[in-house]
């Protein structure tokens, strides 16, 4: 591994390109690590676990600016809005990306062993009293209307990896206290939630927040832990706007070898691979259907639904739009075409490796 670094600890260009194709690049504590194997991932975990708690911006570390010492209050909802409260625990779980053991589209067996240690955001009841349902990937979808605040209690409930995590949102408004990002010496409280700790983020749903957005870990080991499954979505609607009859969030992503220990990546939708394991979407003729697609790894994906077209942002009909890392595209239509349909990423190497699923439309 040392050969991959120059004297500054950075990866050389050639090394970077090599890693980018096969694994991950993680920078932890100022050190760039190439992560090609599970052993590499374990070393990254050790490095992340060894990071000391940041002193806090208020301690005026070298290089700090006056803005680093600003303090911020938690915002409240606008008149007519409400505070929508969520309790989310981050924890590792054993995860099988293909519980059926089969690819129902390709009629093939997916050999084991397939399970590995994933990392999830899991919804809990108030006070982290009990989990609400099983662990899922993505984590709970957080919904709000313009004028609301999202009050999100995040607990680092993992006892194995012993490293800090966060929850960083896109799309909503927040002050630096609730950014949920590790910033080295300038990290605020919400940017380093150590094992056993919890932090409460408060975000505002503003008029320009309307849409669908990702959230994910942005702690000191964010790349590896996001690839392990620490991601989810939030939806902000105009006040009083109705929900579509059928609404789905689909994360297109992969579990690479450093996460799984296998030779090849699992190409996944929402943490599962291959039709029959990935979400089976359903609708009836006449339903308004919205499918929000988020790019969840370092690749670009193209989202295709057989038998359907929908307008893009410019109003032009599309059926295979591109979605990049942490970008979101929404496919939305009034259903008029019953049958069994496929949806899949149209990057061939992805679709044939499992990034596909069923869409069932009843008459």
């Amino acid at each position, binding site marked *: 591994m040392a050969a991959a670094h120059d004297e500054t600890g950075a990866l050389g260009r050639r090394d970077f390109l090599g890693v980018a194709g096969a694994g991950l690049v993680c920078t932890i504590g100022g050190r760039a690590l190439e992560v090609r194997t599970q052993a590499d991932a374990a070393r990254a975990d050790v490095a992340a676990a060894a990071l000391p708690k940041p002193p806090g911006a208020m301690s005026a570390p070298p290089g700090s600016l006056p803005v680093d010492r600003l303090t911020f209050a938690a915002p*409240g909802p606008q008149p007519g809005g409400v505070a929508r409260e969520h309790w989310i625990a981050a924890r590792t779980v054993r995860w099988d990306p293909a519980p059926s053991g089969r690819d129902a589209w390709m009629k093939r067996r997916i050999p084991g062993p397939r399970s590995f240690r994933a990392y999830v955001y899991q919804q809990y009841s*108030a*006070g982290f009293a009990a989990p609400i349902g099983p662990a899922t990937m993505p984590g709970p979808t957080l919904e709000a209307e313009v004028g609301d605040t999202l009050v999100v209690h995040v607990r680092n409930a993992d006892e194995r990896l012993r490293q800090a995590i966060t929850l960083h949102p896109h799309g909503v408004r927040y002050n630096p206290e609730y950014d949920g990002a590790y910033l080295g010496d300038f990290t605020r409280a919400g940017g380093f939630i150590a094992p056993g700790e919890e932090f409460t983020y408060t975000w505002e749903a503003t008029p320009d927040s309307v849409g669908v957005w990702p959230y994910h870990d942005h702690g000191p080991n964010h790349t590896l832990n996001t690839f392990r499954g620490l991601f989810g979505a939030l939806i902000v609607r105009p006040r009083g706007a109705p929900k579509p009859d059928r609404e789905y969030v689909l994360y297109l992503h992969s579990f690479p070898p450093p996460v799984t220990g296998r030779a090849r990546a699992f190409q996944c939708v929402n943490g599962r691979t291959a039709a029959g394991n990935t979400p089976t979407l359903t609708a009836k003729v006449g339903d308004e259907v919205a499918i929000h697609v988020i790019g969840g790894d370092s690749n670009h994906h193209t989202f295709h639904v057989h038998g359907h077209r929908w307008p893009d942002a410019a109003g032009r009909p599309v059926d295979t739009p591109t979605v990049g890392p942490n970008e979101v595209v929404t496919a939305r239509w009034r259903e008029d075409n019953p049958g069994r349909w496929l949806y899949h990423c149209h990057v061939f190497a992805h679709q044939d490796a499992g990034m596909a699923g069923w869409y069932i439309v009843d008459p």
Partner: protein
Amino acid sequence: MRAAHAVPAVVAAALLATSAPAAAIDYPPPGDPGPVVQNPRGKHRTLFVCKRSTKRRRCFRSIQTAVNRARAGDTVKVADGTYNEGVILKGPAKAGLALIGNRKHPRRVLLEGTGLKTSDPHSQNGVQINGASDVTVNGFMAQNFRANGFFAVNVTGYLLTNLVAKRTGAYGIYAFNSIGGTMSRSEAYYNNDAGFYIGQTPKQTRPRRSLVTRVAAWGNVIGFSGTNVKYTTITKSRWFNNGVGIVPNALKTEKFAPPEENVIVDNDIFWNNFNYFPPQPVPFQFKGAATGDVDYPTGVGVLLFGGQRNTIERNRIFGNYAVGVGALEQVLLKFDLATDPRLATRTGATADAFELQANVVRDNAFGAAGADLNGRDLFYDGTGKGNCFAGNTLTAGLNLPVDNSTFAACTTPAAANVPNPAAQATALSWATADPTHEVAWVRHPHKPIAGLTPLEHCVLDAGGGCQGQPQ
């Protein structure tokens, strides 16, 4: 002390009465529980304790001897039997230690306090953990200790599980000045103060939450008490047949007032009508409060006595004769903070620590769908700000105030809280001007619950417990 205050003496007495810590007990001095620590790493040993060694296994005769030999991260396994000793785990050298008795049958590993000399520090607590973080105590019963059954102080993290605490001088299962921890699958009864207690939680930016789950407290003066308790979730538990069920409270006798950010969710809180006041016999040595002149209110399910950003949600609350859920500002602390400018600095209290703020009471089911009514479902004196009520199923047909004027709905912007001095005075009089301790009661018939018998007045049985109650 009460004479120094402008509030009426009877009011002060009532306020002092609620869950004052048993300060007369010889506790270790509180310290800084420190940062979260990693679990001890390396190779750990298992030490055995039993009443008689065998050829196959030699063991220590006393638990304390084994604990003294154990190092951080080791396990001490204790065989069934009665051990006439209290155990002390002190300092970081005992961090991560696991003290394991009989997890399935904790009563079979009995720590007995009877007969221990008063001067012996081991007579105070069944197990005391002081400054040793992440200790596990699993599978024991402790009874007849002068102070507490199981007691963790100055620690970051603990697991107290599968325990039974009976007839102690103060608290059954107790954590003080500590950060994070779990009390679970345990039972506490016949304790002179609270069955379960968490107090003086240090303020934290990224808190470690404490969890009280799947426990039962009955026959105590209070089921759960928490002076200045914070970041604690109480859930999936039964609080019944106590004088009061659950009382988070703000007091100046402990640091870091007020109680904050606690969640009381999915509990059964019922029949808390145990009138333990003399001259009626009680199954413990009734000492009164350490602060003197104790008149604990009885017949109350949950009482917020001061408190901020606490949530009481989705509980089943029934058969409490005075009130199901009450909320009362801490009048005495309000006076103290106003008249003693150094009090806040000295104790780490906030300037508004007396005030009720942003507490939410929602989605609770009162009165068992009409089958087991509370005397009143709700009481709130209307003081403070941001306190609200929503989605509760009320059945008693009676609240305090009777016009329901203080029960602000949960809206945005928050509906104003409107103080009701008459309601406050009425509630205080329940605890202060009533030698029977039952004047507030509005009795209703109880619905039967298999295996349980309501406890209102104790008639002692041959074993020193109350007739009709479990042993």
